């Protein structure tokens, strides 16, 4: 075993250990915000940056370095491996966490229920466990890290555990996380294929019967889908992500969901070997459904963080759609389109990590400044909080998929790969697949709607409450964190060729080969040269910027620059006030109207003679009512029956032990 300290894997391990140490240091002075916030979180940010750099270096020189650590149970050492796929996701973990940790340094001012030092421990253990998930090379290590990740994030979600809703959200999260973990565990159990070796190498070498392989794939899809929030396993996500403090929401939506994508890619492209093409149809269709479902539910939300959580469901849907498409392509031997699709998926995952973190942190800043998370009580904050507003605007435009920012590039790539779908040599399927592009386009366009609502209602218009007049902009440290993520969104959008060539190390590792090389200059993105479809974000942006500046200057030179301020047009009636703007409910109304069958709507309208008129609108999830409530009732009923066993007398319990022992002995003999 090679323990040299300059190998990337050892460096990664040391950095993850450093994260744990930073967390433990928080316990030294748990109540000192100056120490925990101003010292420990910036150190955590530096470690994140170092981790991203080490991973980037290892991506540039792929090596598949291994390490066996003799810790844990006897004869069960921890296997670790750093390959291209892990490296990419380590960058996805490290780079956004820099911005999130910097923001958190300024954010945790008062403590959020839990003592700041304890939060610091949970936060950094959460980060480190995500890193270990990406490095694990055997099922034990993977599950250990996976469970640590679930538990630490559970404690972070329930930071404000005195609020009943948050406790409830935390419970649901923990429950779904464990159901998912069981499915993953069973999947690994099948993947070892009778060898009883649980290293990933043994799983790669194991030959599974096709049926068992399909079962393993489905279990993995359930397990990782539950973690990612794939519909119908998404119910915990819109409750749990908003419940956490904003930097944690950012980590959970931005980064943790991607560990599920990592697991899915690892299982379906690496451990199972060559994917079978029709397996891909399952994540593809579930993904499309999730994308539409998530964005349709995001539109009528009135809680800004819940809106973002549903938008995460949408993006997870886009990721799984791409993953499924890549599996179909790989399964039928179309390797270049498969590589293109997988690159688009990973690219989108990285993009989403930046933009969703940025948006969640933006809501955190708004929450701190105003104490409001209900869109109906916000508005006009661009005047009071210009920094937060303009930086959040970048994130909103990016996630709406507008060029030249990063969200557009990955969606563009995904649409380009859908253009190959009709060449899949399977009748009927090759006609259905291109329709996926139409649904994807619909989801992307709806995301634009949602983001206009999100940004417009919070930051534009007139303040809907008087208290908003006193809102103060985020502090310098928080602005730095936001700016880092916004910069990420811009750079990821401007330099797609660099990123794609870096990502092709992953597709090479997964035996899909790299994209066909083209003689295009570095600023021009031509993924498939024979198609001649090209996109150059830098030129694109420069052209718009030049035109805008030219028009601005020439209008000012040729004419004048006189400006007068006056009251807004009130149709001659007078008395316009801020309550007359569209509310969040109002802005979501067309979507509610159009997609009515999806929602379970409870509406309370005021009557004409009410002395205190009340309007109440609640939008429920039909899947929750149709799927989860009956399941919950069933579980409760069975539990009630089983509770008969618990008689509360010591003698009875001793009898149970005795009977169990006798049965076991009988079985052994």
């Amino acid at each position, binding site marked *: 075993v090679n323990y040299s300290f300059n190998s990337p894997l050892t460096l990664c391990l040391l950095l993850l250990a450093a994260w744990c140490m930073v967390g433990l240091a928080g316990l030294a002075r748990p109540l000192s915000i100056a120490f925990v916030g101003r010292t420990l979180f910036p150190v955590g940010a530096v470690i994140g940056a170092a981790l991203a750099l080490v991973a980037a270096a290892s991506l540039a020189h792929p090596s598949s370095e291994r390490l066996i650590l003799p810790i844990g149970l006897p004869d069960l050492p921890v296997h670790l491996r750093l390959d291209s796929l892990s490296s990419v996701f380590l960058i996805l973990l490290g780079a956004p966490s820099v911005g999130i940790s910097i923001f958190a340094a300024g954010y945790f001012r008062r403590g959020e229920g839990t003592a700041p030092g304890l939060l610091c421990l949970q936060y950094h253990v959460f980060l480190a466990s995500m890193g270990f998930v990406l490095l694990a090379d055997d099922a034990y290590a993977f599950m250990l890290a996976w469970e640590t990740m679930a538990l630490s994030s559970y404690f972070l979600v329930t930071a404000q555990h005195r609020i009943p809703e948050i406790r409830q959200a935390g419970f649901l999260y923990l429950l779904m996380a464990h159901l998912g973990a069981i499915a993953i565990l069973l999947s690994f159990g099948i993947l070892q294929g009778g060898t009883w070796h649980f290293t990933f190498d043994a799983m790669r070498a194991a030959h599974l019967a096709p049926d068992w392989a399909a079962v393993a794939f489905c279990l993995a899809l359930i397990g990782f889908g539950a973690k990612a929030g794939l519909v119908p396993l998404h119910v915990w996500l819109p409750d749990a992500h908003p419940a956490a403090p904003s930097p944690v929401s950012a980590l959970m939506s931005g980064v943790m969901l991607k560990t599920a994508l990592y697991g899915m890619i690892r299982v379906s492209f690496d451990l199972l070997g060559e994917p079978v093409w029709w397996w891909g149809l399952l994540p593809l269709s579930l993904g499309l459904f999730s994308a539409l479902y998530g964005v349709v539910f995001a539109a009528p939300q009135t809680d800004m963080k819940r809106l973002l959580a549903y938008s995460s469901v949408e993006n997870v849907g886009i990721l799984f759609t791409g993953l499924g498409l890549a599996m179909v392509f790989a399964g039928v031997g179309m390797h270049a389109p498969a590589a293109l699709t997988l690159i688009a998926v990973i690219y989108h995952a990285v993009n989403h990590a930046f933009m969703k973190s940025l948006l969640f942190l933006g809501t955190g800043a708004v929450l701190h400044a105003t104490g409001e998370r209900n869109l109906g009580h916000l508005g006009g904050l*661009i*005047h009071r909080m210009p920094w937060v507003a303009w930086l959040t605007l970048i994130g909103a*435009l990016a996630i*709406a*998929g*507008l*060029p030249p920012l990063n969200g*557009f590039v990955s969606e*563009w790539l995904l*649409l380009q790969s*859908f*253009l190959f779908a*009709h060449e899949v040599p399977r009748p009927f399927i*090759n006609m259905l697949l*291109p*329709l996926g*592009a*139409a649904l994807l*386009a*619909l989801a992307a*366009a709806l995301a*634009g*709607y949602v983001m206009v609502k999100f940004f*417009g209602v919070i930051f*534009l*218009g*007139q303040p809907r409450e008087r208290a908003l007049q006193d809102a103060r902009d985020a502090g310098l440290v928080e602005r730095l964190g936001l700016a880092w993520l916004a910069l990420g969104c811009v750079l990821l959008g401007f330099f797609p060729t660099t990123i794609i060539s870096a990502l092709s190390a992953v597709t090479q590792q997964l035996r899909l080969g790299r994209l066909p090389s083209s003689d295009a200059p570095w600023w*021009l993105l031509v993924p498939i040269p024979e198609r*001649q*479809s*090209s*996109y*150059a974000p830098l*030129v*694109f942006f420069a*052209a*718009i*910027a030049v*035109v*805008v500046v030219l*028009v*601005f200057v020439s*209008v000012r030179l040729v*004419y004048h620059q006189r*400006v007068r*301020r*006056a*009251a*807004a*047009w*009130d149709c001659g009636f007078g008395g316009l006030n*801020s309550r*007359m*703007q*569209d509310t969040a409910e*109002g*802005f979501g*109304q*067309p979507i509610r*109207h159009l997609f009515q069958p999806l929602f379970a709507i409870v509406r309370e309208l005021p009557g004409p003679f009410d002395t205190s008129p009340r309007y109440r609108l609640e939008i429920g999830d039909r899947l929750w009512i149709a799927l989860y409530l009956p399941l919950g009732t069933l579980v409760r009923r069975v539990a009630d029956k089983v509770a008969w066993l618990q008689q509360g007398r010591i003698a009875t319990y001793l009898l149970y032990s005795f009977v169990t022992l006798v049965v076991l002995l009988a079985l052994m003999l």
Partner: protein
Amino acid sequence: MNALDWIVQLMGIALALAAAPALVGWVNQCRAWLQNKSAPGILLPYRGIRKLFSKDAVIAENASQLFRLAPYVVFGTMLTAAAVIPSIATQLPFTRAADAIALIGLLATARVFASLAAMDVGTAFGTLGARREMMIGFLAEPALLVVIFVVSLTCATTALPIIAERLSAQAFSLNPSLAFTAVAFTMVLLAENARIPVDNPATHLELTMIHEALLLEYSARHLALMEWAAALKLFNYACIGIAVFIPWGIATSHAPSGLAASVVWLAAKLIAAGAGLALIETLSAKLRVFRAPEFLATAFLFAVLGLLVRLLLGA
């Protein structure tokens, strides 16, 4: 890539800039004739823009920087879009920077900025307009994308100049998938350009309008830019339609005679398209706002039908 390419490219942009208000004027003129009214001159939109530029800008008290930035961004994106669309020639250097999907993204950027600016002042009409504009947009955008998809499947590329070149090289034939998508595209064009039956460009009754509600708070140079951008948008959509469905006559090289013929062809097609647009507007009645999604959903389904026909028949 040589100087001549760039000259033709700039010519195309200049042509769009100059001819866009004339197209609007022409449509208005045709519509007035069809409705038996005395028609305004074709140059009226130019006069309107000139008048607006020399007026004092009045900005609402609550407006932020975003409100003042938006007209420039909307105008800039529309002009950039004009540079991407092959209107008179297909050998355009700038078009490599953006394919048809990026073009749709560009149009979406303009829409989002216009909507955000409308929400900025915080009046009931502004937010109402923004909401309706985005509602139209989220239905029209995927329909347009599927239209582009069908054409891209036919030509195996999403680069618009190459699509126009390949389609113009084919002899004219009644292609069923293109026929379906042409219907879908026309419906999207009507909706996106605030035309009857989705919106009424002539109305100023606040409760029924969409596009005008977005512009309600704008005045003077900002309004002029927004109006000009709207004209450019109509011109761009018309040129996309021409490049995709009736590309014959477009110059595929830079021979001066070909370019001259191409300009004449383009003018003839635009005159016909404008007259057709006026005819559609005269023959149909404005839909209630809540019927607009049905109209656009029909467009989306037509486009999807075109896609299916294309995949089924391979034509």
